[in-house]
């Protein structure tokens, strides 16, 4: 969780990722932020998050992002 939180905070230092639960649907993250986050997660965890994973529910909160990373790690 700490590692993901660091990646997210590097991309958007202004957002409190530990408390927000509508990061995408609330408009806090835009598509550029999501693409940046995907790129960082793919590099850090050597996973492959693709365009079809780009659904709001996968990026709305820290826990949703963590769940996505874990799913991708289990698919490796």
């Amino acid at each position, binding site marked *: 969780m700490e590692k993901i939180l660091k990646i997210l905070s*590097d*991309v*958007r*230092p*202004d957002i409190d990722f530990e408390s927000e639960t509508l990061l995408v649907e*609330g*408009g*806090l993250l*835009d*598509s*550029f*932020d999501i*693409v*940046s986050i995907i790129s960082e997660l*793919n590099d850090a965890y050597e996973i*492959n998050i693709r*365009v*079809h994973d780009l659904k709001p529910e996968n990026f709305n909160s820290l826990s949703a992002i963590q769940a996505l990373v874990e799913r991708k790690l289990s698919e490796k």
Partner: protein
Amino acid sequence: MKPVLDIDFVDKVLADFFKKETLTNNYILREEYANLIESQALWYDQLGENIFFYVRKDGFFRLYYFINEPDIVYNLSYDEPIVLEILYRGEKYFPTIHQKYWSAASFKSHLTRDCYFLKNTALNVEDLGLSLEIKKGKSLEEIRYAKELIDSNLDRFTGDHLSMEEVATFAENGFLYLAYFDGNPCGILQADFKNAVFWLGHVVVDMNYRGKGVANSLVNYYLKEGSALGCKQFQLWVIQDNTPAVNLYKKFGFTYLNKSSYSMLKK
């Protein structure tokens, strides 16, 4: 260049041409693509494994690309200017490879803009003073004045140029502010409220009134308004080498948001 007629084509391009190593400046959401197709504003071109989307704007095209074969130079030639904009996360991520590719295709560096933010909680409204009279623009005359200032002072390719209708809508929503000096209008600021963020869209000071603290008063007013509206934070884009503007925003406490935009232009 051919028109894109349905969203299935866009889906296929994203699935087939958008890979991990693809050079792309594409951050358009699917629904935005659908809107562009509906208004017949989306076109495409293909060169080998490279695909290019063109969005029709007023007097120019905006280019989005998916480059999988960077060795193939795209020597496009159209009558109208073409602009491309690349988002990146701070200097260490500057899109050098993109710049090199498009320089070879005769594009020239245009503008670099940085995104700044300020938390509402970091703001002390009591400290904000106004040295000029600021009013919300409502009348047709005020809307026209704002539109003229924007048209004559801001970049038409990258600055989200506003139509008369859009300026009127901001005025209607109470997000257009005019500064007055001795009873004469001397500058405007247009804001927008989106998802608890109070955006500073455009600020322009009349050439004849520069150096009189007009921008300072307008930004003061904007911050007070946003604070009263209960926004979570303030955000804006500023041209990187516009030092007076950058310094003004920094003075108010704005800091860089790890987000920049580099644009290139072919006329």
